């Protein structure tokens, strides 16, 4: 019996039949079924790279459910959302955030969105904020030229799986010259046990337009494993700006393998700000292709890995045009036997001129058994490029803790302040509403660590 008595679900296991039934439940055009089936074949053909940790290899794809929905369609008012979903979203503070500072919200529950709304004035300016299904069918002309072009199904095993069974996610289009002042935000909730969430997002920021897009995610704690394997594609055109902010706080039974990639055209700017606190294992390496002259890419991320967690995150930047610049700042905190580190790649095409990259990776280790790794790859040729790389590993200095304790702070408060101090510059990059919450979450993680 299904735990939530959901009306629409595929049951456990993954086969052609699973894919066909998802496509049928979503009443898709036949070509999308073909796309999905082809992707499924690719999934079965691909294997995981050797460095992928054991917890991810051990995942039994036949023990997961691939589509679960209660027949919900995205509602335009919270009053129409089912009481169970509403109370959960309220506990996550979503309606409140929407009122206070967001320009639009999409809230996904398992496989489908339960709520989706954007301010009227943005609709009037031609901004689109909806889910991938609507993108595929209603906004096909805008959507299709980019869909699965930035991240093809063959990119990696999880991208192939996502392409076969995707559901939900966001489709955002910001027309030329439109500057969306407040953020649009998508929330993802995994409610069902032994479930895979495969949202698929595409974000297009047209010439001279600006957007801040945010993602947040949570799930209740189960003893079994769940999988979140999203694909996000983005296209930032000439002179446009995209800021993409993620606060990842999955429960510690979720395997989080996200493929997120896009390109920046001439003089465009892409900035990622990532915070990873939850999940059992996270594999996430945002990729930016700087393909227009003077395009800029920046990735700021911090990750905390507690007992039993692995935050395997990093950045991939490809400079393929002149005078492109990129900046990477990664800070990780490993606690107990947790592993948090950086795995990334920066490459500059040989015939490019005047490209710059700066990469900084800092790791903080708490406890004797915590681990980190910094695994950068730099591929540069030509003599007009500037590359800087800095890395450090530190622990919390006992003298500093003593100083704080001598001022009356408990050891755990002293530890929290020190850790917050380590990531403070990054946390300040998040919007205020999130930086406050993040500080609190970091304090909780650290105070657990010191008991």
């Amino acid at each position, binding site marked *: 019996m299904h735990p939530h008595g959901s009306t629409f679900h595929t049951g456990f296991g993954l086969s052609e039949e699973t894919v066909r039934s998802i496509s049928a439940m979503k009443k898709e055009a036949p070509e999308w079924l073909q796309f999905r089936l082809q992707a499924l074949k690719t999934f079965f053909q691909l294997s995981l790279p050797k460095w992928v940790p054991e917890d991810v290899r051990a995942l039994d794809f036949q023990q997961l459910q691939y589509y679960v929905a209660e027949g919900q369609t995205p509602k335009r008012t919270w009053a129409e959302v089912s009481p169970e979903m509403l109370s959960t979203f309220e506990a996550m503070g979503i309606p409140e955030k929407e009122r206070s500072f967001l320009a639009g919200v999409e809230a996904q529950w398992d496989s489908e969105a339960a709520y989706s709304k954007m301010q009227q004035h943005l609709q009037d300016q031609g901004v689109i904020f909806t889910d991938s299904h609507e993108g595929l069918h209603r906004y096909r002309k805008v959507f299709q030229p980019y869909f699965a072009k930035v991240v093809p199904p063959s990119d990696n095993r999880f991208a192939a799986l996502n392409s076969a069974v995707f559901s939900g996610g966001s489709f955002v289009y910001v027309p030329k010259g439109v500057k969306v002042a407040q953020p649009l935000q998508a929330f993802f909730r995994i409610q069902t046990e032994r479930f895979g969430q495969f949202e698929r997002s595409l974000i297009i920021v047209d010439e001279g337009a600006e957007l801040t897009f945010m993602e947040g995610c949570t799930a209740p704690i189960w003893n079994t494993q769940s999988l979140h394997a999203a694909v996000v594609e983005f296209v930032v055109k000439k002179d446009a700006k995209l800021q993409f902010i993620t606060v990842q706080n999955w429960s510690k039974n979720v395997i989080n393998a996200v493929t997120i990639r896009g390109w920046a055209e001439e003089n465009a700017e892409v900035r990622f700000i990532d915070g990873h606190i939850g999940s059992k294992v996270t594999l996430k390496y945002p990729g930016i292709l700087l393909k227009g002259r003077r395009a800029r890419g920046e990735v700021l991320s911090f990750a905390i890995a507690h007992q039993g967690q692995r935050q395997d995150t990093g950045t991939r930047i490809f400079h393929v045009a002149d005078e492109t610049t990129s900046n990477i700042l990664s800070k990780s905190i490993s606690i107990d036997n947790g592993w948090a580190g950086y795995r990334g790649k920066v490459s500059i095409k040989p015939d490019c001129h005047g490209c710059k990259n700066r990469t900084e990776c800092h790791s903080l280790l708490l406890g004797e058994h915590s681990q980190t790794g910094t695994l950068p790859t730099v591929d540069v040729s030509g003599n007009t490029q500037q590359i800087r790389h800095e890395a450090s590993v530190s622990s919390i200095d006992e003298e500093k803790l003593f100083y*704080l*304790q001598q001022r009356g702070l*408990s050891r755990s408060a002293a530890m929290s302040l020190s850790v*917050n101090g380590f990531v403070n510059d990054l946390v300040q990059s998040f919007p205020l509403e999130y930086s406050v919450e993040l500080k609190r979450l970091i304090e909780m993680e650290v105070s657990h660590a010191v008991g």
Partner: protein
Amino acid sequence: MKATLALQGLTFRREGKTIFENLELSLSTGEVHVLSGANGAGKSSLLQCVAGHPHYKLESGQIQLNGENIVDWPPEKRAQAGIFLAFQMPYELEGLTVANFLRTALKFFPQHPLHGASATEFYQQIYRLLEAVGLPKTFTGRSVHQGFSGGEKKRFEWLQLRLLQPKFALLDEIDSGLDVDARQCIGKSIQEMRSTTGFLLVSHNQDFVTLCQPTALHQLENGHLQNLP
């Protein structure tokens, strides 16, 4: 009410070397004791032991605060009970602002007038203190001690002393790196606070010692404390 901090038979050794042995000292509120001695004589070690630094474990002896032995208390409990150490070389705390640090510290002093104060009250008081110790208001947003000059570090230690109004203040060369004016101001602070605070201070500056109007002088030499006339 008069409070007393009594060091009884303190022995501390490091790497086989005796730093001090069977040391006795009694300090009450209203008193100003000065501790002198050559460099490396163990003056700072003694203050660290009293404050409860985990690397400065006493081999034997008792530290009695109003008759209660606090040798097993962790450093924060000693601090909360009113023992304050002004560090000779305070540590830089990257990313932790002065305001956040002081506000967090005050949470652990339930009796303090600023405990649970509004942000406005808190900032008003901190701005007053910053002015009094000769630091600009912008220091509230700076990382604690990071990039401070030697003198600024001492001024910020002094600010914390004035803010927390401890029962016992252990001042480890608080005057070093300060100009004459600042030293005089600290001397004045000590006079203002001494009715409710007992001071044990380490200083190499005779003028400063005179300013503090000490009630007792001690010299630490070869691990033993001698009382000077």
